[in-house]
């Protein structure tokens, strides 16, 4: 099973601690592209069947199909040092997939929300849901497509009704450095958010 060609699929055995970041956003906004730009492995894709109502395990019990959908999730991997590995999961942001990505967001460093300014309204639902969760830090990364109308940051914040503390960064998901910068902004925010929580408690 472990051929030479597969040898690089494995992690160094010194790695002890996995962490994860979730990348969510509307259809075609650049989730897979961002994961691929940063990942050290070719992005991998899993497909799970889930019911509209609940978790993906329902069908394991052999239940006759409720409303089942197949949801594709892409992920990539970045070994950060000899102890820590980061997994990036890209998941669709629509309401019917919330059960899946809310599970993924548990214990995550945070969530990066990719936004296409041509379709801001596609991001409203996912942002509302993240603000409700409150316990998961998130940042907004704005992708620029060729026919994008330029939005000022303030205009965008107002349109998306963001909290003043939520970071907004520009991002070209095709560019590794730009994608890394968006992730860095998220982790900086997560660090500050944690400090603020600890100070408040």
């Amino acid at each position, binding site marked *: 099973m472990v051929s030479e060609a597969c040898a690089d699929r494995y992690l160094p055995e010194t790695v002890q601690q996995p962490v994860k970041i979730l990348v969510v956003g509307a259809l075609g906004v650049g989730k897979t592209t961002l994961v691929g730009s*940063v990942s050290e492995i070719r992005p*991998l894709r*899993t*497909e799970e069947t889930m019911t509209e109502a609940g978790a993906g395990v329902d069908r394991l019990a052999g239940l006759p199909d409720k409303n089942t959908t197949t949801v594709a999730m892409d992920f990539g991997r970045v070994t950060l040092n000899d102890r820590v590995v980061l997994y990036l999961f890209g998941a669709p942001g629509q309401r019917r997939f919330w059960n899946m990505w809310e599970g993924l967001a548990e214990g995550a460093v945070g969530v990066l929300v990719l936004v296409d300014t041509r379709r801001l309204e596609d991001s409203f639902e996912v942002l509302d849901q993240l603000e409700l969760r409150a316990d998961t830090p998130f940042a907004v990364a704005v992708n620029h497509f060729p026919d994008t109308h330029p939005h000022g940051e303030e205009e965008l914040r107002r349109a998306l009704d963001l909290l003043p503390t939520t970071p907004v960064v520009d991002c070209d998901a095709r560019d590794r450095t730009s994608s890394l910068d968006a992730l860095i902004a998220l982790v900086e925010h*997560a660090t500050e958010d944690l400090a603020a929580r600890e100070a408040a408690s």
Partner: protein
Amino acid sequence: MSSPGEYHDSPLRPYVITRGRSRPTRNTLRVDTLLLADPDRPLPASAGRQERALHRMCVRLLSLAEAAVHLELPVSVVTILASDLVDSGHLQARSGIPAAARPDRELLLEVLHGLRSLR
């Protein structure tokens, strides 16, 4: 039904693979949990084909999600299989952050430094 070598994920199959259970025995395994087989503990003769494949896949360190993709099995199924093998001591699990918790400051700074060093 399916042609040889082709992967078909029928609704029934996972149920059969996991011997009728729909929940793993432990809930500490997550998609990013790292798995590693203990080379000194061969599986018992009673182990199923999928358990063997997972055990072989984890001859070196990788995450549950990666193992699932390489084995062409749903993550939910591999979670159940891995859970059994962890219980029986055949797989070692290095877990991610528990659901209710968040990474601590030290770990966040490690992530930050790691990402910055990649720029």
